[in-house]
């Protein structure tokens, strides 16, 4: 190395601008990659640590207290793989939280006695000595997304009655905590709980919390529990397990990790093209000098090292800097993720991530730089000096085409994401959620037909549909059931294979059940003590319920349950607030309660739009930086190689402006064509990418609209930006004079 160091240092000094630009790209790669890896290594670990710290149960089963008996505990304890069972009391209610992020928020809520002694599902509670009968402790998710604060107030609407509480503190728990789990906790001090339970005695439940052996089969244990309950004629209100809760709460984090890793891979690929281009370009430019080096005694290996080391060295330095800088962004990213995950943690320095972030890109850079430089070995000094060594292309156009395609993939993905979140938000929400009406009205079953008629006569109403979310049980636990009078009329078709049910004996099941229940097979459901067998007609997706969902027709559900008393109302205009107010006043006798779903959807969009905008901004910034840096390297190299040619052109009367345009138009067509082709191909690859990414979180059927118009606009903008940047970067052409060439 000592003998090569002079050359390495010389190479670094000679084109330091290019190594700095290369280093910046790698730095960016490392920054994004380190964020992704630290999240991957620490979020799930932090989740598990908190899960263990709070002795969270692996499985929780909720049953009505009146159905509980002393034998259940003993039988569950006997199940193979169950190491501990603990009983807790609670009150299970369908609650609406008022002013949740400026809207009403419907969520099944289990209220617990905060002071109940418990070994499992312990709670990490912020202390507040001034509890009274109106104090409630809320989970972190409600604080983060709902915008509630300690000491503030919160109003729950239960069974049509509003009750205001003072927020005594925030609870960290790992049992529920997220909209996606379908249930959320509420925690009342002993006195408050006692009066609450008395008031809602019909909703009092017993919770069986199970700790299982380390490698126990959770599905099998849930089956065994369901069997025990079924034998006793008990319908579980809810069965949740640690895996489903974890998947739901870390959904956005997983999505972010995938996007960031893909982004880092694209940038790294472009960087590799860049380093290969530079090395090939250097070999072409400095052929004679390399020949001289060989003549004076440098071996091929030493010269190759002198070409490869600066890139490898830049890679090492840049990846370390990028990884370190990422720690400035990580707390912010973790905070954004807490909104969706419902738990917070502080990312700390991660040696394993650093190791990978430094080693992987550096090795890839080294490998490709080496492969680009390998022709130096074959370079005969005499041929190099005489200039007869084979001159191949530098791959400039390939680099530009690769860059254009890479950037267009990023821009197209970001643009499509933005378009479907901002311009066509229904596409985004339909992908991540289920049916999105404007308003949901709850009514007594016997008043449903009348309310439906009134709504149908209202010319502001586009559609009225009997639609409800219910809870049903099957062999492996509980399912959220979507019950609708006619799935042919729904606005969000979440069926991704087969079809939705049409007959009363048909059912479509969620993606979590797809493996065990092929289309055409039968599944037994139970609710309210009745059971019925249904034929599976198709599969539906569900992000929020981890795929544990099903669709039943209203008549099909009535076989096991009572009428749902729920109507989805779809309005032509965004007037849900006024509409609800009017109906609650004018049809007080028909409407029990209502949900402003328009506002709720808006809140959901706002939450996701916040996360998406961060991703989109990152993608746009990265794209522009990559274009800038790659063009800088290419144009700098081009000017340096064609210096003499430009001097001659100037000598015969060409102006700097003409030469600049001549230079830029020499390669911009490559950018334009590649961008255009990539935009058109986007119609094919974007759905594939979107499906791949979103299916990781359970959104198998992607509703994103890929607009060729948007893609072409991005291709044009990209080409225009590349043209402007190229003209600016070609400014050094002005400094070339014919006279200076004579002097040289």
């Amino acid at each position, binding site marked *: 190395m*000592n*003998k090569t160091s*002079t*050359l390495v240092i*010389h190479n670094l*000094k*000679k084109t330091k601008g290019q190594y700095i630009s290369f280093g910046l790209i790698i730095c960016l790669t490392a920054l994004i990659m380190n964020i992704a890896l630290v999240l991957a290594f620490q979020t799930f670990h932090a989740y598990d640590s908190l899960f263990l710290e709070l002795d969270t149960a692996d499985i929780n089963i909720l049953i009505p207290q009146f159905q509980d008996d002393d034998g259940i505990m003993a039988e569950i304890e006997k199940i193979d793989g169950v190491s501990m069972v603990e009983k807790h009391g609670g009150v299970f209610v369908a609650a609406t939280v008022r002013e949740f992020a400026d809207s009403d928020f419907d969520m099944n809520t289990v209220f617990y006695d905060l002071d109940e002694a418990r070994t499992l599902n312990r709670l990490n509670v912020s202390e507040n000595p001034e509890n009274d009968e109106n104090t409630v402790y809320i989970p972190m998710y409600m604080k983060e997304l709902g915008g509630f604060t300690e000491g503030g107030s919160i109003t729950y609407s239960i069974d049509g009655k509003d009750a205001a509480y003072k927020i005594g503190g925030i609870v960290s728990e790992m049992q529920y905590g997220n909209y996606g789990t379908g249930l959320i906790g509420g925690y009342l001090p002993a006195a408050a709980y006692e009066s609450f339970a008395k008031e809602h005695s019909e909703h009092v439940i017993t919770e069986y919390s199970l700790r299982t052996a380390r490698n126990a089969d959770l599905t099998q244990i849930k089956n065994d529990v369901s069997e025990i309950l079924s034998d006793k004629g008990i319908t579980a209100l809810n069965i949740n397990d640690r895996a489903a809760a974890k998947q739901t709460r870390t959904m956005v984090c997983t999505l972010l990790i995938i996007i960031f890793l893909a982004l880092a891979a694209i940038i790294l690929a472009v960087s590799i093209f860049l380093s290969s281009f530079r090395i090939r370009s250097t070999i072409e430019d*400095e052929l*004679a*000098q390399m*020949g*001289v*080096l*060989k*003549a*004076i*005694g*440098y*071996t*091929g*290996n030493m010269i190759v090292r002198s070409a490869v080391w600066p890139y490898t060295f830049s890679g090492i330095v840049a990846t370390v800097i990028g990884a370190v800088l990422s720690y400035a962004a990580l707390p912010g990213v973790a905070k954004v993720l807490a909104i969706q995950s419902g738990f917070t943690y502080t990312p700390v320095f991660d040696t394993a991530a650093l190791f990978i972030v430094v080693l992987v890109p550096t090795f890839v850079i080294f490998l490709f730089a080496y492969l680009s430089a390998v022709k130096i*070995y074959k370079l*005969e*000094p*005499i041929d190099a*000096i005489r200039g007869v060594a084979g001159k191949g292309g530098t791959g400039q156009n390939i680099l530009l085409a690769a860059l254009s395609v890479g950037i267009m993939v990023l821009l197209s993905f970001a643009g499509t994401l933005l378009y479907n979140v901002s311009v066509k938000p229904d596409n985004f929400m339909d992908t991540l959620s289920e049916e999105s009406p404007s308003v949901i009205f709850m009514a007594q079953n016997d008043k449903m037909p009348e309310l439906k008629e009134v709504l149908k006569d209202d010319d502001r109403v586009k559609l009225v549909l009997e639609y409800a979310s219910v809870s049903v049980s099957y062999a492996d636990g509980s399912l959220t059931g979507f019950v609708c009078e006619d799935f042919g009329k729904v606005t969000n078709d979440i069926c991704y294979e087969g079809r939705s049910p049409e007959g009363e004996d048909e059912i479509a099941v969620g993606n979590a059940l797809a493996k065990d229940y092929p289309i055409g097979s039968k599944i037994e459901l139970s609710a309210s003590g009745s059971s019925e067998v249904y034929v599976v007609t198709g599969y539906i997706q569900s992000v929020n319920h981890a795929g544990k969902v099903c669709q039943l027709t209203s008549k099909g559900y009535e076989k096991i349950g009572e009428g749902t008393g729920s109507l989805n109302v779809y309005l032509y205009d965004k007037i849900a607030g006024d509409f609800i107010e009017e109906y609650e006043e004018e049809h007080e006798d028909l409407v029990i309660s209502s949900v402003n779903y328009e506002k709720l959807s808006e809140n959901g969009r706002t939450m996701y739009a916040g996360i998406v905008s961060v991703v989109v901004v990152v993608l746009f910034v990265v794209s522009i930086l990559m274009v800038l840096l790659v063009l800088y390297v290419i144009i700098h190299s081009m000017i340096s190689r064609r210096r003499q040619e430009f001097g001659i052109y100037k000598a015969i009367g060409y102006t700097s402006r003409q030469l600049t345009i001549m230079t830029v138009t020499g390669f911009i067509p490559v950018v334009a064509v590649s961008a255009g082709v990539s935009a058109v191909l986007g119609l094919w690859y974007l759905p594939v990418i979107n499906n791949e990414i979103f299916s990781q979180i359970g959104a198998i059927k992607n509703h994103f609209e890929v607009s060729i118009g948007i893609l072409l606009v991005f291709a044009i903008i990209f080409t225009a930006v590349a043209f402007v940047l190229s003209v600016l970067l070609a400014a050094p052409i002005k400094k070339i004079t014919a006279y200076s060439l004579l002097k*040289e």
Partner: protein
Amino acid sequence: MSKQTIISAKHLKKSFGSKENVQTIYSDLDIDIYKGDFTVIMGSSGAGKSTLMYSLSGMDKPDGGEIDFDGTDITKLNSDKLAVFRRSECGFVFQQIYLIDKMSLMDNVVTAGVLKSKSKEEIRNRAKELFSLVNIPEITWKKTPSQISGGEAQRAGIVRAVINDPNVLFADEPTGALNSANGTAVLNVFTSLHEKGQSIVMVTHDRKSALRGNRILYIKDGKIFGECDLGKYEPDNAERTEKFEKFITEMGW
């Protein structure tokens, strides 16, 4: 006293081109180079002067024959071993100079020096001596090749070539790209080095340059066609110049 042979080449063959269009440069060439000589190889354009010189120095491989360079058959060395061989045995001065751009003159010399010596201090001290010898002032050492004259650059090229005290200094048309004054200055350096005992092999078609040598070889039709011993260089020795002129006229120059 008989001369000590430092390079002895036998039955050298070299040709260029494809099968259909083979251009034979030499087919059975024998040549000896003697230690301490300033050997000049002359010949018409395309005669193979440079090709021969580069074969003798291990820069280019002949198609056949043997080259014994101070006891080593360099035709049997692979390219890496040849590189190691060249770094200690050969120095090169090129017509186009080929100093490394954007590297100072001192660094250009050090870049060659580190191949043989581990101490950069030793190399710098030796370089300073040599820069003084070739009349390059200290103020110029830090300049890059583009900041100095062609003559200065070529003299720096000579310093780079001799920094590792090579057995033989090879020069390919060293004054070919220089004006008269710069050319003379460079030739003076060669003469000075020769006087200090440096073996030199120079290819040239320039009479003035050739006169600096003590032994002139003329290559023609792929063979050493003639040889002339001019003896020690003396600037104003008319008899020596006349002998040289007569020789190259006989050779068909």
